[in-house]
C-alpha cells in the first residue's frame, strides 16, 4: 500500500506514452496524452495525502480539530487540470485542421515532414 499510488501514477504515464507511440489515430493520441497527464494528478495528490486527514476546508470543521491533508498539492492539481483541458482543446483543433489538409489522421500516412 505504501507505494501503490506512486506506482499507479508511473503506470498511467508509461501506458499513455505507449499509446502515443503506437497510435494509429491522432485523436486517439491526444486522448493518450490526457492519460499521461492524469498520472501527474495521481502523483501530486498521493504525495499530499495524510493518513486519517480530512479535506482542508474549514467551513464545517473547527480549525485544528482534525489533521488535514496537504492543500498545496490540491491547488497545484487544480491548475494542472485546467492546463490539461486547454492543451487538449488546442491539440484537437490542430488535429481537425490536419484532417482537413492531409485527409487523414493516421500518423503513419502523415509523412510529409521528413529529414
Amino acid at each position, binding site marked *: 500500500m505504501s507505494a501503490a499510488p506512486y506506482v499507479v501514477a508511473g503506470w498511467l504515464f508509461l501506458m499513455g506514452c505507449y499509446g502515443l507511440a503506437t497510435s494509429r489515430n491522432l485523436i486517439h493520441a491526444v486522448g493518450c496524452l490526457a492519460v499521461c497527464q492524469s498520472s501527474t494528478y495521481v502523483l501530486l495528490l498521493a504525495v499530499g495525502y495524510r493518513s486519517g486527514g480530512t479535506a482542508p476546508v474549514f467551513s464545517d470543521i473547527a480549525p485544528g480539530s482534525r489533521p488535514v491533508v496537504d492543500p498545496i498539492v490540491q491547488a497545484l492539481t487544480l491548475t494542472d487540470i485546467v492546463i490539461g483541458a486547454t492543451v487538449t482543446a488546442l491539440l484537437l483543433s490542430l488535429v481537425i485542421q*490536419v484532417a482537413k489538409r492531409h485527409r487523414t489522421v493516421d500518423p503513419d500516412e502523415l509523412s510529409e515532414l521528413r529529414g
Partner: protein
Amino acid sequence: MSVAQTLPLIVITPMFGAALLVGAGRRLPRFAAETLGCLFAAGAAVLALLALAATGSSAGQPAEWVGGWRPHNGVSVGIVLVGDRTGLGLATLVSLLVLAALAYAWRYFAEPPRRHAGSFPALVLLFQAGMCGFTLTGDLFNAFVFFELMGVVAYALTGYRVEEARAVQGALVFGVVNSLGGYTTLLGIGLLYAHTGELGFAQIGNALAGSPGTPDALLIAGFTLVVTGLLVKAAAVPFHFWLADAHAVAPTPVCMLMSGVMVELGLYGAARVYWTVFAGPGGMPAADAHRALLALGVLTAVLGTLMCWQQRHLKRLLAYSTVAHAGLFLMGLAVLSPAGVGGVAVYVLGHAGVKAALFACVGILLDRFASVDEHQLHGRGRELPWVGALFGAGGLALAGLPPFGTALGKAVTEEAVGGWATALFVLVSAVTGGAVLRAGARVFLGLGTRPADAGRHPADETAGEEEPETRGGPLSRIPDTMLTVPAVLLAAALAVGLVPGLRTGIGQAADAFTDHAGYLAAVLHGRAAEPVPTPPPHWTASGVLWGLVATALAAGLALWTVRRPVRDDVARWTVPLRRMHSGHVGDYIAWFLAGVTLLGALIA
C-alpha cells in the same frame, strides 16, 4: 517604486495588452491593433531595461514576493520573482525580440481572421508574458505554469497558417512532444515536493542541504524528470525532433522568437534549476551533472550540424543550425563555472540577433518568390542585393566572424570547455555558417550550376515550396520594416561583441547566477551577497584566431560546394539519420523515453 516591484509589471503588461486586444479586437482596425501590440511589448521592454539598469549598479538580487508573502525565518507560503541580472537580461532580450518580430510583421502579415484583427499580436504578447514570467520566477511550479503558457501559445502560433498542411502538422507534433515534456517535468516536481515539502527554488535547495551525502534514486529521478521537460524545449538530442518540424512551418516572426529565445529559455531553465536547487550540499554532485550535460551537448551539436548541412529548405536549415548551437550552449553550461555561463550568455545574445535576422531574410524570400528552397531560388535573389548582403553577413556571423557577439561567445565558451572542444566548436560553427553561406551564394549570387531539378522535385518532401505569408500573394516590393528589422538585429549582434560595458555586466550576471549560496541568502533572507568576482568575458588573441579560422573554413566549404554539380541522390550514410527525423509522432515519443533513460543513466 523599487526595482523589485517592477518585476511583476514586466509580466502583466503584455498580459493586459493581450486582454485589451482581444476585448476590443472586434472594433479595432488592424493598424490600431498592431500599434497597441507594439506599445505593450515596448512597455514591458522599457520596464525590463529600467529594472536591469537599476540592478546593474547594486549588488543585490531584487526579490519580489507576490502578494506580499515575505518569508519569516526563511520560510514563506508565496511565490517569489527574482530579478537577478541573468533573469532580467533575458526578459529584456525576450521583449526586444518580440518588438522586432511585431515590427517585422507590421502590416505585411497575411490578413488576420475576420473580426479578430488583434489575435496575432495578442498571441505574441501572451508568448512574451510567458517567457518573461519564466525568466523571472523563483518557484518550480510557477516556472512550470509559465513554461506551459509559452508552450500553449507557441503551438497556436506555429499552426497559425491553418491552410498550410505542413504548418498544422508541425504544430501538432510540437504540441504533443512539448506537452509530454511538461508533464514529465511536473512528475519530477511531484517527486521533489515529496522529498523536500517545498516548491521554491531556494526553499528546495535549502531543504536539500538538510540531508547531505550522495544523492539517492529519488533525487536523481527528480532531477532527471524536471530537466527532461526543459531539455525538450531546449531541443537537446534526442528530444530535438519537434524543432525542425515546427520551425520550418511557423510564420517567420514566430520563428524569430522560437529560434532566438524560446529554445535558449529551455537551457536557461535547466541551468537555473541546477544552480538554485541542486548545486548546494545535498544536491547533485557537480561531476554527474557535468557528465550528463556535456554528453548531451556534444551529441546535440554533432547531430544538429550533420542535419543542417543536408537541408535545402532554408527554414529547416536554420532550424537545425539552432539545434547545433543549442548543443554548443549546453556544452558551455556543462562546465558549471561562471566563465562557461558568461560565454554562453554572450553567445545566446549574439545568436538571437543573428538567427532572428537570418529568419527575417528567409521570410522576405518566401514572400517575394513563394519558396524557401535553395535550389528553386537559385540566382533569383540577385534582384534583392540588400537582403543578400544581410543574409551573407548573418552567415559569416554564425560561423564566428569577429567582432560579432557570436564570435566572442564562441571564443569564451570554447575556452571555458577547453581541450578538444575548441575543434568541435570551430567545426560546428564552420559547417552551420557554411551551410548558410552556401545557400546565400546559390540564391543571391547565382553561383554554381543551376540545379536541374530547380523546378520541382516531388520525391523530396523537404523541398520548400510554400504559400507566401503576405496578404494578396507574393510581394512586389519589400516593405522598409522587413528590411530594417534584420539590419538592426545584425547591428545588435555586432554590438554584443563590441560594447565593453555589456561584457562586464554579463560577467557579473554569470558570477551571481552560479552562486548557489548567494541566491538562497538573497531570496530567503533578503541579504545581498557579493559573489566572488571572476574575469568577465573578453576577447583573446586565440579566440579571434579560431573565429577567423572558422569563418574561412565556412566560406571555403560554401564555395567548394557550390562549384560542384548538385547531386540528386543524398549521400548513402545520411539515410538512416534522415529516416530518424520522420515527422512521426510515435517515433518521437519512443525517442523521448529513450532520452529520459539516457539522461538518467548519465546522471546516476
